[in-house]
């Protein structure tokens, strides 16, 4: 059977776009190897000093650990909230579902800078109440990240629930299972993949969140993106190039593993 394939003009244009997409990612590699203290192309001699400074400078390690902690806490919170909400929607199909889901998706639709001002308002307002939760605290950042990631987690949950066969839940109900049993022993095992994906996505989004973080931190809660931002604004620190190369390599590896796994078992979405 014949198929409709892109012609030579399409292919050339697509190659140009692909080069445009990959160019800045490749450009950080030579910069990361420069022996110079400033942003420059290496001339002749190569050096790994910027990779070494990632390990030796405690600021980088501290912010990596902080970002990990914030990412894990906010991912657990947003996955749990998104899961219970989506179970409620799917099991009971309450009235006004569309409006409620629309409300939950707001932080994803509203321009991020407006969400940032909103969360800044929230955290500065509660700062006076406690010292460990509020503006420029790690718990405050974790909570703010949950607000931003929970719509994405909810979308993933609702999508994986929509692919579930309602009859298995009806059967469990007919056999006398309680709401708790239906949720934990019938529905959740069937959407495991969706729950794990939602948790991972929430973590990744929190790990690289910068737009909101800039508004709600100043000197204490310096996450990794926040530290990169500080190194990018004024004098550009080539250690950022070294860090970028490492992050790019991790991304490529994870994507390769993921595509390998999905190719192994093509039935699952």
């Amino acid at each position, binding site marked *: 059977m*014949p*198929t*409709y*394939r*892109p*012609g030579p003009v*399409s*292919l050339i244009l*697509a190659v140009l776009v*692909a080069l*445009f*997409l*990959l*160019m*800045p*990612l490749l*450009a*950080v590699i030579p910069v990361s190897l420069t022996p110079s203290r400033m*942003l*420059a*192309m290496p001339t002749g001699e190569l050096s790994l000093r910027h990779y070494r400074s990632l390990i030796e400078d405690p600021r980088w390690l501290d912010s990596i650990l902080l970002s990990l902690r914030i990412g894990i806490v906010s991912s657990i919170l947003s996955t749990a909230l*998104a899961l*219970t909400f989506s179970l*409620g*929607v799917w*099991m*009971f199909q*309450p009235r006004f579902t569309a409006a409620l889901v629309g*409300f*939950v998706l707001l932080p994803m*639709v509203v*321009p*991020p*800078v*407006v*969400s*940032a*001002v*909103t*969360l800044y*308002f*929230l955290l500065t307002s509660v700062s006076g109440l406690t010292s460990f939760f509020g503006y420029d605290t790690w718990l405050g950042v974790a*909570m703010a990240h*949950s*607000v931003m990631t*929970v719509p994405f987690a*909810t979308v993933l949950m609702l999508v994986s629930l929509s692919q579930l066969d309602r009859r298995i839940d009806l059967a469990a109900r007919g056999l006398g299972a309680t709401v708790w049993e239906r949720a934990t022993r019938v529905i959740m095992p069937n959407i495991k993949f969706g729950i794990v994906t939602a948790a991972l996505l929430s973590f990744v989004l929190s790990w*690289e969140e*910068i*737009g909101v973080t*800039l*508004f709600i931190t100043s000197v204490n809660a310096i996450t990794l*993106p926040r530290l990169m931002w500080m190194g*990018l604004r004024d004098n*550009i620190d080539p250690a950022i190039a070294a860090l*970028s190369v490492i*992050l790019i390599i991790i*991304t*490529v590896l994870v*994507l390769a593993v993921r595509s390998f796994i999905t190719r192994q078992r093509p039935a699952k979405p």
Partner: protein
Amino acid sequence: MRGTLSDRTGAALLMAPLLLFLVLAYAWPFLGVVKWSFTLPTPGLGQYHALLTDDLVQSVFIRTLRIAAIVTVVSVTAAYAITVVWVRGSPVQRVLAEFCILVPFWISVLTRAFGWVALLSNRGLINTWLQSIGFISEPLTLVRNEFGVIVGMSHFLIPFAVFPLASAMRSLDERVLLAARGLGSSRMRTFWTVFVPMTRSGIIGSALITFVFSLGFFVTPAILGGGRSVMIAELIYLRIFQSPDWGLGAAISVVLVVFVGALMALVFRYVRPKQLV
């Protein structure tokens, strides 16, 4: 009767935590921001009046709309070119296209903006190379201006523009294209008169996403614009943190939300949301 009652309680119990969380952590503080815009520094409509009369604010609004429009056209066009190959190419071409779309998509906005700094700055890759082959003597100013902002934002938004286009192209019936070719239409003509019109909903969806995203963009313009081509989001940041004028920052935020909401309502009147994704 008993069933419906327990259903309702069950639904309420399961849905309450998230709804309560977002009301307390999002809806309530947003109303606080709206309140700021009417009360700081003095109660009244002063900040909204300033929005309409202040030259700086006006020029930032116009620049933001202009950059967003250019970025939308660039991103949707570029995304279209690579999506055609991702959806319709040979198996090898598809894998390569997917790699080029997904790798940048998953890499953080900071790394990508930094990559453009490394390419475009005075001591960056492009200027170093052009100088070493003697093509130019003085470095070209490619960054810390609107050009850099447009390049960086388009690069960020192309993967987002790809997804609605891809779903439109996937749902397109291949037999129509083969019929057009079989009836003697050239490749070019088939593309422009059959393929493109049939992916219209994808183009609209992709343009809407790109435009709305560009309006509220903060990180890329702040890094690649170098404070010289400030967009709305950066203006809000500056008003709140550098020249403490929370009222004006809040008022700009409110206007931005209303504008984006109106834009989406307008588009959804003509295209149903389901066709977009």
